[in-house]
């Protein structure tokens, strides 16, 4: 019995252990110590608990209660975009959004799916899209998931009447972008959509949050900081899992965005867009070679005094309203606004006025003329032979008119757009000592070519101003293994062709308009801009007022000799007035005197059959009235044939609208 008791009090004997594991004094000491350590630890914890609960209890309770109130953003109505006369280009219409609080959806999967399917049927939104949107926002129970932006009244009534069938579904007022003029000025205005994850990451510091609406292109994007307004704040009590347990309580009202007034003129913009379509149609109907492929273009109209853009048209275009509300992928596909379909629709989202680069052809000749006079390699009234072709180093450069053979001065050469005259000038540039760099390019660069114009419109192309250095860098053993040794050299032909705006040179219509504005205003290079001012809308009590905004840089002097400019202006005047001028038949009878230059630039284009060949790009750039210009117009019709065929008549339409006068009958066209 004693043995038995002992074996219960101590560990049982084990053959491998020599002595049973006794509760020795040593062990007792250790267990005692361990107990004391445990006691000390728990005593500390208890004291800490007491200090938190009793000593600081009140203070921490307050902190915890604050933590239970969560902030919700209230989107501000976006500011409108106006034209220079206050006509509305873009504004908002109130809409009704259907949202889901994902945390209030039924917990059971089957019930939840049934609700989503039912909602999908009511709203005519695919159920998988709702599911995907809910899944995307699962980690953020405090931002409602937008299901549909512009719900109809019938849908709203249906959902409200059956609210208990749709737990977690909320009807909220919202603002939708509205375009009263449809696709008018789409490339200028741009479109808005919900902020993308990438933009959110980049712009989080500037106060953008998930679910915000942000301008994606054009003015909507460039002046988003003015248009977006300031989001308001509402508060919501939530439990520890972030589930709302109260109604939304407004705290800080949202401040509507400011109105952005543009320099654009709705009337002129309409005229420019119509003129562009007219020019394209005219080219298509003219039967000229390649004109069947006339399918795009741009017209720019700017104020030569300060660079204010009066009209900016690009074709083909699109309706920005396609991005309003729930965006339908198929609608974007059809409109050519997705990467997959853009090429087939000839890139309607591309703003050709600032983001399309074309060889300028003869519209570039005034640049050559001014540069040559400034460099003293050409006297304004020096007579040079204009012939049907020009031979240099065994290479033949043709004139657009093969039957001409006379000597002429610079103004006449400009008016008749004599290529061979300018070939000789180009060759003189080639012969200049190279220690001061390529002079023609230096002047072209001073006039803004090869660089962005700085227009406040975002994505802009700088074009290409070819130089000997550019050739050396572009054509290397690696990029051009067959012919790099020859191609990397700047040859006489490069200078000769550059003189008439051909070969590698690429410009945007806006760069061209800027250059003609410089001729028109007497030598100042303007920065084209669209912003007139920013206005805070008047709201209850506070009157509207102008908001300080960054103004475009002032026109910069180019220090061009006034006499040289006068010679070029004389040439441009003759081109539209003298019987031999290239666009005299179009502008000659217009009551207001217009000066300008045609251009026909060859560009290698694949019309879609896999065989790229040279197509004529139709250009016209000029200004009016000739003696004190108020408007510069630059028109470009892709594959539009000669400058006088399509671009010049289109530009005339813009002048007609601007001056409110009609041109009379136009005679036969003889132009490059």
């Amino acid at each position, binding site marked *: 019995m004693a043995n038995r008791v002992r074996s219960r009090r101590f*560990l049982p004997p*084990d053959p491998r252990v020599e002595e049973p594991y006794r509760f020795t004094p040593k062990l007792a000491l*250790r267990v005692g110590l*361990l107990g004391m350590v445990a006691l000390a630890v728990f005593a500390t914890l208890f004291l800490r608990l007491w200090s938190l609960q009793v000593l600081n209890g009140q203070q921490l309770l307050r902190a915890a209660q604050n933590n239970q109130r969560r902030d919700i953003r209230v989107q501000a109505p976006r500011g409108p975009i106006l034209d220079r006369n206050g006509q509305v280009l873009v504004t908002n219409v109130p809409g009704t959004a259907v949202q889901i609080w994902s945390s209030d959806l039924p917990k059971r999967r089957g019930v939840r799916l049934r609700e989503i399917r039912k909602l999908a049927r009511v709203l005519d939104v695919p159920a998988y899209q709702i599911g995907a949107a809910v899944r995307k926002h699962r980690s953020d129970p405090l931002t409602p998931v937008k299901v549909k932006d512009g719900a109809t009244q019938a849908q709203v009534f249906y959902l409200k009447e059956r609210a208990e069938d749709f737990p977690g579904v909320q009807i909220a007022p919202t603002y939708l972008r509205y375009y009263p003029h449809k696709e008018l000025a789409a490339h200028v205005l741009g479109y808005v959509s919900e902020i993308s994850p990438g933009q959110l990451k980049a712009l989080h510091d500037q106060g953008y949050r998930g679910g915000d609406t942000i301008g994606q292109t054009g003015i909507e994007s460039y002046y988003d900081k003015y248009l977006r307004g300031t989001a308001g704040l509402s508060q919501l009590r939530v439990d520890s899992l972030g589930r709302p347990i109260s109604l939304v309580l407004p705290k800080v009202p949202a401040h509507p965005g400011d109105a952005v007034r543009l320099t654009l003129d709705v009337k002129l913009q309409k005229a420019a867009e119509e003129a562009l379509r007219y020019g394209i149609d005219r080219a298509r109907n003219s039967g000229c070679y390649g004109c069947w492929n006339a399918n795009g273009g741009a017209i720019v109209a700017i104020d030569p005094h300060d660079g204010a853009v009066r009209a900016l048209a690009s074709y083909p275009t699109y309706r920005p309203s396609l991005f309003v509300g729930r965006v339908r992928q198929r609608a974007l596909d059809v409109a050519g606004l997705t990467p997959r379909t853009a090429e087939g629709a000839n890139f309607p989202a591309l703003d050709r006025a600032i983001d399309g680069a074309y060889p300028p052809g003869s519209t570039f000749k005034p640049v050559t003329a001014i540069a040559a006079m400034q460099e003293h390699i050409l006297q304004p009234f020096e007579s040079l032979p204009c012939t049907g072709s020009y031979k240099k180093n065994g290479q033949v450069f043709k004139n657009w008119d093969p039957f001409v053979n006379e000597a002429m001065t610079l103004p006449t050469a400009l008016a008749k757009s004599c290529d061979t005259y300018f070939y000789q000038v180009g060759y003189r540039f080639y012969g200049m000592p190279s220690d001061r760099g390529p002079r023609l390019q230096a002047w072209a660069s001073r006039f803004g070519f090869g660089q962005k114009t700085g227009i406040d419109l975002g994505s802009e192309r700088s074009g290409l101003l070819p130089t000997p250095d550019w050739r050396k860098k572009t054509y290397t053993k690696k990029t051009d293994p067959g012919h790099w040794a020859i191609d990397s050299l700047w040859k006489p032909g490069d200078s000769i062709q550059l003189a008439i705006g051909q070969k590698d040179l690429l410009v945007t219509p806006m760069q061209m308009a800027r250059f003609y504005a410089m001729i028109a205003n007497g030598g100042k290079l303007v920065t084209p801009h669209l912003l007139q001012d920013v206005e805070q809308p008047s709201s209850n009590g506070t009157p509207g007022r102008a908001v300080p905004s960054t103004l475009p840089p002032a026109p910069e002097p180019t220090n061009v000799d006034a006499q040289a400019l006068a010679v070029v202006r004389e040439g441009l005047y003759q081109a539209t007035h003298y019987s031999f001028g290239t666009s005299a038949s179009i502008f000659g009878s217009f009551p207001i005197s217009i000066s300008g230059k045609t251009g026909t630039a060859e560009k290698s284009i694949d019309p879609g059959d896999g065989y790229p060949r040279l197509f004529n790009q139709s250009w016209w750039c000029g200004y009016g009235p000739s003696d004190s210009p108020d408007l510069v117009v630059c028109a470009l019709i892709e594959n539009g044939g000669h400058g006088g065929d399509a671009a010049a008549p289109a530009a005339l339409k813009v002048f007609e609208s601007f001056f409110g006068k009609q041109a009379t009958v136009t005679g036969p066209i003889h132009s490059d």
Partner: protein
Amino acid sequence: MVDHYVSNARAAARARRREAVEVASFVRRLDWLLLGSVAAVVGYGLWAIAGITHHDVTGNPGYYLTRQAVYVFIGVVCLVVAVLVDPELYRTRWRWIFGTTAFLIAIVLLTGPIRGSKRWLDLGFFRFQPSEFGKVLFVLALAGLVADRARGITRVGTVLRILGFGLAPIFLVFIQPDIGTALVYGAALAAVLFVAGARWWHLAALALAVVVSCMAILWWLPAGGMQVLKPYQTSRLTGFTHPTSDA
């Protein structure tokens, strides 16, 4: 016949008496203080849950309370089973216990991560965390190991062997990552070594090593540009020094 019957009856009565004595002594030997504290904690838990979750599920105020009560019932059944198992079994079969625990913790690492760490085994109807069961099994296995080698506990070799057995599961839990459970394992290992009677200076050296490696992991290595722990883990370990921050 009768005699035989009587003796049979007596034997049965004796057996019953012995049984009654054994049950009584078993009941007396139970650690009532421990059981009482467990019952008190469980009861407090039920009361607190009933109060907190009363409004959580509309139409069913007792939803979480009944749930917890079911868990308590399952726990009591497990407790009875555990009490009835002869402790001898743990001592003789510690290798099995150790092996199974380590195996379960190891295969968790092969599963997909849930909320960023690989701790759970999904059995379809039930998801469980082997390292939680491991807390008990780990101590049992270590105790078995130490009991086997009680004589040699004063030797460095034995201490190192116990450390080796103990650190393997600690490492497996640490890389799940579940630093909290790893610390619990570490504390258990230290307590086992201490009670088993390791030499004082062995324990002191071990404590020094632990302090040095803690300093290294928390401050010295990050200062030298090498992050052992993730920032949130570091802030959990140092967070007690500033309780009002919500890190």
